[in-house]
């Protein structure tokens, strides 16, 4: 048997296995459809719009106009377990927003340097290669994970109807994580770089991440095992799996002294794509599955579809990593496998997108009034776009043009920014008023934030995708000197800096609003009166 047919046989066998497995879960899957999808609501929640970030009058009017019931909200429930995670959540969000500000400034400086290479060249910490790495690590280990973990921590006690276990541990874990990030960035800025993309932080600091992450994760895992609900809502599946996936990924990838040569490169991209596909993505999807139905007061359209989406994602996403190495010195069978699985990813992506669309259908007018919904729906749409784009980028013909170009960076921001970051923004707008028992002080700033980042992001995407395609075509044409591939990108790289500046402005507005809200809330109510507790 040659390797290709062996691969094919394994592939067919495992897909068959996957579907048998999904079928075996049908109990509690296909037959509890309606009750399962209602776990996130109290009985009163269904049938009316609800968004703590919105102007209450607007939402009331909307509810009346659309003929839906208008009752006072019971969500900030009198259920004690709901309060159990507020303080850890608050710590996670606060740190995430802090890192977002620095991360985006580092991104903007990197962007500017690419068309002004003589800007800030007098120290290692400021050189392009290091600044870019700092940007990547601040978003990949600061903003994004702390943000999505904060959302997960908010959702979990609500979804499980059980108080968070060991909230104090989680807070200590968050503190350790932040210390690790500071140490990691300091290491990179001083030239101590482990040399693998997405894993630049030295393993000695990585131990701290493992410890901090373990403390945050374990508190949620123990909560998972004490759940009181009969049914685990789809968000819980994504959160639960991600909490187990990430430690395996990080520890295997960081293991000193095991990996060698090209195997290290395949491990590198096994990690890097899985941290995207099996960590940020599932946690953000979990948030969409929670907040979107919650705001519009309507259970997810097809619960079956969401669970099919989960297991196909779990199966296919893990194996796509080698699509980062197409054309590279890695075994050919591995590239083929990753390309095929990249295409198979269309299944979970379509399942998710269709489901969200059908859930939202008929409620589009709520986008005008609910800031949370606006961010979350924008994020969900960008998930679809990023993934479909990614599936095609993995095809050899398409990859041949885009592989080594700025197009990849555009795609990276379509996913990490358009999807993950926008979902975190939306989630924070919904959750923070409930944590602080205080409304957003300047509702106008939420609109400013939204439109600044959407405008900036659009400029960013259009310029960088254009730059990437032009660069790729120039690189493929051996009759053109290499420098042509640099020159064609310059106007578009400037466009990226423009878009990036708008995004940074949006982030500053957001961070200011976040900070003002905290200051106002703390100055009007004594600390203990806030629901900032770790116990119910």
């Amino acid at each position: 048997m040659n390797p290709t047919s062996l691969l094919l046989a394994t592939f067919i066998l495992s897909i068959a296995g996957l579907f048998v497995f999904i079928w075996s879960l049908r109990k509690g899957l296909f037959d509890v459809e309606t009750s399962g999808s209602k776990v996130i609501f109290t009985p009163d929640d269904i049938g009316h719009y609800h968004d703590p970030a919105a102007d209450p009058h607007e939402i009331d009017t909307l509810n009346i106009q659309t003929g839906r019931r208008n009752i006072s909200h019971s969500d900030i429930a009198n259920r004690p377990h709901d309060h159990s995670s507020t303080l850890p959540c608050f710590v996670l969000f606060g740190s995430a927003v802090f890192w977002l500000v620095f991360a985006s400034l580092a991104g903007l400086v990197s962007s500017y340097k690419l068309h002004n290479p003589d800007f800030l060249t007098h120290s290692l910490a400021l050189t392009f290669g290091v600044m870019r790495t700092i940007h990547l690590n601040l978003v990949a280990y600061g903003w994004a994970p702390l943000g999505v973990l904060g959302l997960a921590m908010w959702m979990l006690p609500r979804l499980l109807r059980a108080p968070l276990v060991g909230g104090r541990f989680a807070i200590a874990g968050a503190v350790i994580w932040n210390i690790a990030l500071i140490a990691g960035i300091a290491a990179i800025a001083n030239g101590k770089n482990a040399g693998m993309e997405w894993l630049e932080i030295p393993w000695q600091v990585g131990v701290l991440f493992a410890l901090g992450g373990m403390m945050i994760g374990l508190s949620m895992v123990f909560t998972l095992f004490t759940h009181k609900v009969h049914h685990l809502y789809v968000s819980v599946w994504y959160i639960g799996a991600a909490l187990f996936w990430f430690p395996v990924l990080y520890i295997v990838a960081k293991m000193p002294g095991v990996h060698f040569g090209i195997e290290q490169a395949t491990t590198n991209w096994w990690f890097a794509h899985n941290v995207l596909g099996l960590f940020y993505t599932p946690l953000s999807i979990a948030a969409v599955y929670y907040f979107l139905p919650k705001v519009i007061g309507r259970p997810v359209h097809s619960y079956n579809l969401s669970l099919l989406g989960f297991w196909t994602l779990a199966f296919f996403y893990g194996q796509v990593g080698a699509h980062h190495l197409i054309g590279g010195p890695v075994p050919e069978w591995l590239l083929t496998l990753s390309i095929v699985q990249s295409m198979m990813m269309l299944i979970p992506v379509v399942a998710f997108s269709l489901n969200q669309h059908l859930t939202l259908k008929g409620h589009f007018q709520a986008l005008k009034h609910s800031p949370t919904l606006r961010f979350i729906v924008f994020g969900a749409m960008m998930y679809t776009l990023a993934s479909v784009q990614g599936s095609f980028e993995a095809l050899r013909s398409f990859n041949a043009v885009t592989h080594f170009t700025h197009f990849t960076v555009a795609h990276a921001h379509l996913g990490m920014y358009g999807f993950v970051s926008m979902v975190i923004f939306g989630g924070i707008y919904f959750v923070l008023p409930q944590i602080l028992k205080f409304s957003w002080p300047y509702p106008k700033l939420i609109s400013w934030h939204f439109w600044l980042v959407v405008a900036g992001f659009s400029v960013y995407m259009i310029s960088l995708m254009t730059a990437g395609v032009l660069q790729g075509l120039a690189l493929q044409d051996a009759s053109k000197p290499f420098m042509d591939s640099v020159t064609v990108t310059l106007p578009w790289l400037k466009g990226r800096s423009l878009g990036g500046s708008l995004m940074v402005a949006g982030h500053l507005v957001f961070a200011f609003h976040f900070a003002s809200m905290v200051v106002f809330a703390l100055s009007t109510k004594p600390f203990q009166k806030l629901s900032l507790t770790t116990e119910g």
Partner: protein
Amino acid sequence: MENSLKLIAGSMVTLSFATCALVALPFLQLKDVPAPEALKPYSPGQARGRNAYIANGCIACHTQQPSTTGAGIADAQRGWGRASVAADYHYDSPPLLGTMRTGPDLFNIGERQPSEDWHLGHLYQPRLYVPGSVMPGFPYLFEIKNKAETTKGDRVVSLPEGAIPDGKVVVAGEEALNLVAYLTGMKHNYPVLTPEEAKLAALRKARVPTND
């Protein structure tokens, strides 16, 4: 409880498939690949230069993986060398394949540009050599001195006319010299063995020398 266990078990199984494919199988397939005879391990200076390459983030703009397919279709015609194979990275931990070609591939830069002076000057200020380059200069790897103050051990960089004021010289630091030793050593021009040839070579090595 039953549901949570099924969930965790199922998701660990899917992850283990992925780990087999991307970590374990490449490990097994590649662990016995011998180093090509013509490939020399890094000298201590080159190894330090390689670390400098990592520390300064050169990988953000440069790949080290010429190819003949896909995005690498023009590589050979650009003089970037033959397609690289796994064995070429025998001494690389980690390999610095890179994902961006904001600058050219550097896997065979030592072939293409053997001049130490060119590299030093280019690192100091790329735009003295390639107008319009977007590569940053790395002035912190160099020292500007008065001509009169240079000592015998100083490696003075010969720059194009007018690059710095009269009476001043640019002296390369230790790290810059190491980096250039690494770059000029980047030559992967020896022929690649076919799998059969590699097998034969391994056999021949294992057996008592015969005269075939």
